[in-house]
């Protein structure tokens, strides 16, 4: 190839790439319109963009965002920040100069980290949900939006076919009758895994290591993430799964409905409650928009959609839940609890001990 041709080819390639838009250069750099004064005609309306920072399982369908934008005048931008732990770390590290205006998806197992780092500004919504979901410390900053319990799920059909009874409580899982039937995501790599671990801590106290040793001796399987457990190993979650007991949510039975019944059920005495919070970020560019967003999350319009969006239960008692949920997803009544403060101060030691125990 001679040089003139070579140069022509290079130039042509560069031009083609630039002209056809096969590049992100020249894409709108996210210029954020300033949060302006409310316009004079409609005094309650705001303007500008609200940046919502959340974990990767959070989705807001277009229809809902449009509704928010119509109702309030703000536009929404969602920014995913990885899994729950990554989200908490990101918010803590960027406290004071946040990557958005409002955070959603911090749960009670991670709440104290960003709270201690000063990532949240004070905010009291006009209609906070019931008292039972609020944090003891930090309720002036974090607002409960939804809740759901992590529980052992059983493949009812499998147990029926085998003529066995599903387990009734945590200690049953170490019973030789259930040998090799249980799979859970790891506490160090998955937030439902952590929640299940906390349930065992709440039940057995300082003796939890003994229980976990029994679990392992009973051939319990520990996998990386919830999806590996549910879709890889759970008999009701995959064609190839071999284990009829899995750590999942109290809402999961609503996703395995066949005809007029669910093929899976929740083992209610194994549950640990997760509550997800939203909070205005300290140093936000658009704090009014952030507050409006949290108020909006608490409206029944959004609350009644939470089951389908997040697989969680709404905090608002007046919200409607879908029919399948009302029938098959029964919220755990008396879940285990461990205070966020205790979790924060003990997490590292627990997890270190737990990881050592399971990698022996």
């Amino acid at each position, binding site marked *: 190839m001679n040089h003139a041709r*070579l140069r022509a080819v290079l130039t042509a390639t560069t031009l083609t790439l630039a002209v056809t838009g096969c*590049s992100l250069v020249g894409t709108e750099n996210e210029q954020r319109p300033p949060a302006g004064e409310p316009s004079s005609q409609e005094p309650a309306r705001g303007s500008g963009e609200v940046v919502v920072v959340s974990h*990767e399982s959070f989705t807001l369908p277009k229809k809902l965002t449009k509704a928010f934008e119509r109702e309030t005048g703000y536009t929404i931008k969602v920014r995913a920040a*990885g899994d729950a732990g990554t989200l908490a770390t990101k918010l*803590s590290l960027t406290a004071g100069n946040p990557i958005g205006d409002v955070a959603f998806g911090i749960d009670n197992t991670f709440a104290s980290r960003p709270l201690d780092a000063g990532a949240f500004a004070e905010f009291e919504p006009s209609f906070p949900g019931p008292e039972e979901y609020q944090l003891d410390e930090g309720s002036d900053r974090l607002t409960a939006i939804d809740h759901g319990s992590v529980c052992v799920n059983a493949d009812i059909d499998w147990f029926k076919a085998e003529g066995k009874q599903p387990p009734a409580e945590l200690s049953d899982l170490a019973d030789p009758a259930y040998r090799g039937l249980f799979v859970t995501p790891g506490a*160090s790599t998955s937030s439902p*895994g952590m929640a299940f671990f906390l349930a065992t801590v709440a039940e057995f106290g300082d003796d939890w290591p003994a229980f976990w040793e029994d679990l392992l001796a009973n051939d319990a399987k520990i996998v990386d993430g919830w999806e590996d457990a549910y879709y890889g190993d759970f008999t009701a979650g995959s064609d190839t799964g071999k284990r009829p007991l899995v750590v999942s949510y109290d809402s999961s039975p609503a996703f395995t409905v066949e005809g007029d019944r669910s093929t899976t059920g929740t083992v209610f005495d194994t549950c640990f409650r997760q509550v997800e919070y939203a909070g205005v970020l300290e140093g936000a560019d658009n704090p009014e928009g952030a507050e409006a967003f949290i108020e909006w999350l608490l409206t029944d319009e959004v609350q009644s959609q939470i089951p389908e969006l997040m697989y969680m239960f709404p905090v608002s008692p007046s919200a409607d839940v879908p029919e399948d949920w009302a029938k098959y997803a029964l919220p755990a009544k008396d879940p285990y609890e461990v205070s966020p403060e205790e979790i924060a101060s003990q997490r590292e030691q627990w997890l270190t001990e737990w990881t050592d125990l399971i990698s022996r």
Partner: protein
Amino acid sequence: MRRIAGLLLAAAVPVAVLAVLFVLPVGGMLAQGFAPQGRLDPGGVLDVLARPRVRRVAWFTLWTAGAGTALAVLLGLPAAFVLHRLAVPGRHAIRAALLVPFVLPTVVVGVAFRQLLGEGGPLGFLGLEGTPVAILAGLVFFNVAVVVRAVGAAWEALDPRPGEAAAALGASPLQVLLTVTLPALRPAIVGAASSVFLFCATAFGIVLTLGGVRYATVETEIYLLTTTLFDLRAAAALSIVQLIVVVGLLAVSARLRFTPDPGRRSATAAPRAVRRSDWTALALTLLTLVALALPILTLVAGSFRVDGSWSVDNYVALGGAGDNGALLVPVTTALLTSLRTAVDATWMALAMGLAVSLIVTRRSHGPAERRVRSVLDGFFMLPLGVSAVTLGFGFLITLDQPPLDLRDSPLLVPMAQALVALPLVVRTLAPVLAGIDDRQRQAAASLGASPWRALLTVDLPAVWKPLLAASGFAFAASLGEFGATSFLARDEAPTVPVVIFRLIGHPGEMNYGMALAASVVLATATAVVMLLVERLRVPSVGAF
């Protein structure tokens, strides 16, 4: 001295880019660990290293990387011989296909291995899931291609005559292999092995998905410490250890690196016909190919299964948002984003890589200048040795103030991917540029050509093919990049690996099947790019 000053001046732009996009973020994260609350506390970091768990993690990293390297070399050598020295039909296509695993996103490979080794999978009876053996298999799967590439290129360029002479003197084929061929190939083998070791020791996604929770390497431990435990001091300590080890390895591999001598390229032996004595090598190669194909075939088969019967529904669904609104954008849109991002990452990596390669390969006058060049060379390899987690968090906390407020820039993702692809580009271009006889440039200069003119007429003609090859590599690497991208990608503009990860993590019958289908689409796109690269036949591609 003036030459060194000129050299540093020429290097100023790429060095500045790397300083801003790499040194600053990583330094920012390390500072969080070394100086919590602004007070320097190096003792605390040292204490971390005395923890028994840290020692165990370091040991596990070392032995899996060592064993993975040994296996990759053992399997790679026969394949390198068969695919580069024998006239096997279809060898070009096989060589291209071999590279697919290397650039396949770890998410996809994790899914494939789980399909294969899981309790209900075709190889489930082996009980390998979640064992170190599964991790090793994954590491070897990724890295065999590196050995085949680097050693194959050297083998191709090897003068066959000494071996023939030995055979004529009565040496058995095994004796020829052990006493003539392997010693001649040693630099290439050691070079490839050190690169593979580096890749194995810094593998993240594959260890996380295949090792489950029981096994941790330094890389996954940094992730755990940073996100779950928020123990930034321990994370900083491990990052420093990792950096030191990687710098050491780079120094070793730089010493042993094999540079093909361009003067000898004309002497390359044409591939010879297959003889009966080649059957061991052929059998081993076949075994390797089958082992590499199995996870990919499982993945493809899985993508065509819906509710226990064959169907293309998973592929049809790629245009939608998945069950239960798992996705904000359909996979087809994500593919478009992936391609556009890859274009940007490619030109960035090429621009940087070309500048760096030119700088590090120019003839040095005196030992001081040579030292400066080799330090620069090592400097640009550093992104290989730092965890994407550290880099990602570093971006957030250091690039957050004007004039360097890049957190919102759509170019952030391509920039990060370009950093990942940069070593690949440099290692493709540098050997070729180093092989150009400097006297050609001197001749051009004495005939009155300006330095730019000399560059255009001497260097460019030699380097244009490798340049295209490097762009293919950078493009494919960008398509598959997951670690840094998942961290930095904007929600409304995810790339395909990010979407796959999201699909796997969302309940819904279709979602898992869609994830498999999207993985196949991504792997196919990568394979096509690699096949085009293979058509260019650049010997030094991937030769670290």
